[in-house]
């Protein structure tokens, strides 16, 4: 009893007490520093959005969305850029999704544990770390010159496919891995073949994760600029690609794929790198729309993830 009192006394006053108080003060200081640094980093994001909004929002109008680029800043618009962005995205998704999903399913469900599988595995991890402009260089030599696809929508779509493929594969594999083995075992026990198991059970079960990965990868593709510049995007296109339909047989045309292309980031880069202030305003307006597009896609990805996480409980 007396001993306890003595200890309590020596802590409640004297040097120990002061040391303890100082340690606590430092602790609070560190906590506040952490909070402030986190806020500072986030406020840069706010500053960026604010700067774009203040500069560009006045330029946003129906006319801006439906006009071609022009020598006169006040008349210039982003029609060819956003149409181009959507078409390039469509092509990218068309090629990258089957390839990425196929690879993920093969590696997770089929691949035997051997050298080749390990090689593919390491290879995908490495591809995810390759700078985007290197994909552009590869596409320039292969698609533009070797396969003679020219500086076209097709080239652009394939270039972005190279870029997003590793991201899609990695995300899809994680989603497939999250499906519990019992589901596969139950399907097999009922006599389903491997492919039936995958098609009817594993893929639908992992759809949430897969969709999230796809959306995030494509939203990355929307903002990519560098690889498309190396394959020769034009920044001044005052026409739309040929329509994909014809008035007579065979009614559909793929000619548009070989038309020259531009996309939103390229248009914005072109305006930023001009000295005239008027074009900087256009750049801000284009940036605002570009930012809205990517943020909307990211939001969609997060929403899909949340929805599926709530719905599926193993």
């Amino acid at each position, binding site marked *: 009893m007396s001993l306890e009192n003595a200890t309590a006394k020596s802590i409640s006053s004297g040097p120990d007490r002061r040391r303890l108080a100082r340690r606590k003060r430092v602790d609070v200081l560190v906590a506040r520093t*952490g909070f402030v640094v986190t806020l500072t980093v986030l406020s*840069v994001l706010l500053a960026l959005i604010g700067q774009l909004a203040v500069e560009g929002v006045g330029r946003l109008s129906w006319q801006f969305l439906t006009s071609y680029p022009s020598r006169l800043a006040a008349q210039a618009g982003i029609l060819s850029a956003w149409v181009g962005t959507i078409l390039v995205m469509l092509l990218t998704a068309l090629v990258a999704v089957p390839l990425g999903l196929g690879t993920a399913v093969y590696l997770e469900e089929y691949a035997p544990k051997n050298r080749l599988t390990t090689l593919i595995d390491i290879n995908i991890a490495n591809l995810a770390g390759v700078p985007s402009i*290197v994909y552009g260089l590869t596409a320039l030599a292969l698609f533009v010159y070797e396969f003679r696809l020219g500086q076209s929508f097709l080239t652009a779509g394939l270039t972005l496919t190279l870029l997003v493929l590793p991201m899609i594969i990695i995300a899809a594999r994680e989603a497939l891995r999250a499906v519990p083995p019992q589901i596969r075992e139950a399907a097999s026990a009922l006599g389903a073949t491997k492919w039936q198991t995958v098609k009817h059970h594993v893929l639908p079960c992992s759809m949430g994760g897969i969709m999230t990965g796809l959306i995030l990868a494509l939203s990355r593709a929307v903002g990519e600029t560098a690889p498309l510049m190396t394959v020769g995007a034009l920044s001044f296109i005052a026409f739309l690609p040929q329509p994909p339909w014809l008035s007579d047989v065979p009614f559909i045309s793929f000619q548009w794929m070989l038309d020259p292309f531009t996309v939103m980031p390229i248009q914005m880069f072109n305006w930023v790198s001009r000295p005239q202030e008027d074009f900087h305003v256009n750049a801000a307006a284009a*940036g605002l729309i570009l930012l809205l597009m990517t943020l909307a896609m990211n939001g969609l990805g997060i929403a899909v993830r949340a929805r599926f996480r709530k719905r599926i409980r193993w």
Partner: protein
Amino acid sequence: MDAEATKPDLLKHAQAIHVPPVFPPRFKEKVVEWLLMITALASVAVTVGIVGVLSYESFLFFRQVSVLDFLTDSQWTPLFSEPHYGILPLVSGTVVTTAVALLVAIPAGTVVAVYLSEYASPALREAVKPALELLSAVPTVVYGYFALLFVTPALQWIWPDLPGFNMLSAGFVIGIMIVPYVSSVSEDAMRAVPLALREGAYALGATRMQTSLRVVFPSALSGIAAAYVLGVSRAIGETMVVAIAAGMQPTLTWNPLEPAATMTAYIVQVSLGDLPHGSIGYRTIFATGLTLLLMTFIFNLAGHVLRKRYRQVY
């Protein structure tokens, strides 16, 4: 095993009741497996494409320019009438912007990671993490705009004689951009530290600050180092910010207040022009790209090794 044993019986039965098997059921399975394997090989083909193209074009380049000149010449003027092919100015530009970026991203990313993993309430963490992820979702061309038209003017307010293009603002913005890469991987590493270690420290009377800095941080160090290395390789490969905000003049300088071109900016600059395919100027971008790929590859490999090692600790 049981499924295998009953299958012949089933087949026999199927034939007995005259169900004409169009194909043996195994055939479709094999086709699917082969198709999936072919898609998996696509990722290997991408790598072969990248390495093949860069090596081949660089090989043609180094037949005309000696490797020694490439590595030691202090001038990079491949498109002048008296060309010099020294990669050093581009490397110095890359190193300086990367260094500035890391000076921002490593302290900020680490503090954010420590704060989120050890101090922040779960609710705050759940709110801040997606917001930080948005930082990496913003298109890089938008960051370029922000660096050129917001950060540089802001810095000129402090240093009035700062040139309009400079490596400082480009590096700063890249730094902010890679904070989420650094912080999320470091946070994962710190979360992986077993709770028992923290509880031990708290039981000995340590404050949160002492626990996080002297127990958690050192335990997660290799994982955190992997995050840093990932940040380095991102910063080296970043293109649009430097192409817009740091200028495109290759100068051998180590002063971040000066304009300079990085390897990525040079590739973009050349792609904007109209260089004839197969000329020496065209090949310089592949030699530059190969250098870039090798540099990032070293860092990616180091990050991979570090992450593997820290996984084995617990």
